[in-house]
C-alpha cells in the first residue's frame, strides 16, 4: 500500500492533481478507510465552495446509459450477426432448394428405373388426373398427379384411418411420390388442404382383399 494521502486530499478535491496522481489516491483510498474519510471531508469542503458557483437548472436526461461489456460489444456483435444472416440465409435457401430438387430427381430416376425394369399394375384416382403404379406384391408404389399446382399428401386409407405416406411435390405441373419400400395397400387417397380430393382402389392378383 502507498503512503497515506494527507494533504493530497484537498488537492484531489480541488482538482489540483493530475490524472496519474488522482488514480494513485483512488487506489489508496479503496483500501484505507482513514484516508477515505479524510478525502470525503475535503470533498465536502470543496463542494461547499463549488455550490457557490452559478447553478444551471436543467432537467436530467432520463438516466445514465451505463455501458456494460455487452452493451459495448452489442453493436459489433449485431453487425456480424447481420452480415452472417444476410450472407448466409440466401445460401441456405439455395442449398435447401438444391437438395430437395436433387432428392426429387433421384426419386424420379429410381421410379423410372423401377417402372422400366419390372412389371407392375396401375390404378387411376377418381376425381383427379392422377394414377398409381405399383408392384404386383405391393413392395413399391409410384403416385403421379398431373396438373398439380400444389403439393398433395398421399395417404393410405386403412381401417377408417388416413395414414400419411408422404407428399407428392409438383415439379413443372406433375407431382410425384415414389415409395420404394412398402407393403400391400388397397386404398390410397390424395389430400389437399386437409381434405380428401381423390381416391384409388388397388387390386392384387393372388391375395384376397381384406
Amino acid at each position, binding site marked *: 500500500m502507498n503512503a497515506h494521502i*494527507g*494533504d*493530497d*486530499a*484537498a*488537492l*484531489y*478535491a*480541488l*482538482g*489540483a*492533481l*493530475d*490524472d496519474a*496522481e*488522482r488514480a494513485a489516491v*483512488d487506489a489508496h*483510498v*479503496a483500501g484505507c*478507510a*482513514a484516508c*477515505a*474519510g479524510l*478525502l*470525503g*471531508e*475535503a*470533498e*465536502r*469542503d*470543496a*463542494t*461547499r*465552495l*463549488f*455550490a*457557490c*458557483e*452559478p*447553478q*444551471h*437548472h*436543467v*432537467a*436530467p*436526461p*432520463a*438516466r*445514465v*446509459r*451505463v*455501458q456494460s461489456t455487452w452493451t459495448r460489444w452489442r453493436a459489433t456483435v449485431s453487425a456480424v450477426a447481420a452480415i452472417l444472416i444476410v450472407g448466409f440465409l440466401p445460401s441456405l435457401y439455395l442449398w435447401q432448394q438444391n437438395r430437395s430438387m436433387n432428392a426429387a430427381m433421384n426419386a424420379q430416376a429410381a421410379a423410372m428405373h423401377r417402372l422400366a425394369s419390372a412389371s407392375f399394375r396401375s390404378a387411376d384416382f377418381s376425381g383427379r388426373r392422377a394414377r398409381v403404379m405399383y408392384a404386383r406384391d405391393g413392395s413399391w408404389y409410384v403416385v403421379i398427379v398431373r396438373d398439380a399446382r400444389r403439393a398433395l399428401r398421399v395417404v393410405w386409407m386403412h381401417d377408417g384411418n388416413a395414414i400419411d405416406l408422404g407428399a407428392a411435390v409438383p415439379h413443372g405441373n406433375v407431382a410425384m411420390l415414389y415409395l420404394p419400400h412398402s407393403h400391400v395397400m388397397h386404398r390410397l387417397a390424395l389430400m389437399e388442404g386437409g381434405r380428401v380430393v381423390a381416391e384409388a382402389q388397388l387390386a392384387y392378383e393372388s391375395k384376397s382383399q381384406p
Partner: protein
Amino acid sequence: MTARAATLPPPGFGPLLRRSGGSVQVSSADESLEEGFAAHRRWAFDAAYRRYFPLLYSSAYNVLGNAEDARDCVHDALARVWRSPHAYTRARGAVRSFLVVCVRNEAISRVRASGRRTRLAERLAAEPHEHDELRITDTLERDRVRAALAALPPEQRTPLELAYYGGKTHTEISRELDAPLGTVKSRIAIGLRKLAAALGEP
C-alpha cells in the same frame, strides 16, 4: 436492505419522477442512499443521479462552459463511477460531494487535455453576468466566496486561488510561487478547510 430502502424509487422511473418536480424526493433516506451506493446498487445510483444532476451539471458547466460538453462530462464521469464498484466506500462520507468532485475532476481533466487552460481560468474567474440562467443568489454566493478568500492570509490564499480559479496542478503552483511542494500542499489544504468553515453549512 431495510424497509426504508423500499420507499426509494426503483430504477427506470426517471421520467415519471422528474415530471413531479426537479429533484427526486428521497426524504431523510441519505443513510440508505450512501449504503446503497457503497453496495453498488442500481437504485441508489439512479436516485443519486437524478437527485444531484443539477449540481453535477452546473459543476461541469462552470468548468467547461457549454451545455453539450457538460452533459457529456457528467455522463462519462458517472458511467466511470458505475464501472468501478469500489470507487466509493462508506468511509468516504456523502455521495453528493463524492460525485461533485468526480464530475469536476473529469471536467478539469478534459480542459487540460484539450489545452484550453486559459479558458478555464477565464471561466472560473469570470463575472457572473456572463451566464444567462443566473439567479441573484449566485452573485451573492460568489461574493461570499471572494470575501472568505480575502479573509485568508495571502500565503494560503494565493495557492488556493491558483488551484481553484486557475485550474493548476500543485506542481505548477509550486513552480509558479517558487515554494516547496509540501508547503504548497499544506497551505492549500489549510486554506480549503478555513474557506469551507467561513462559508458555513449550505
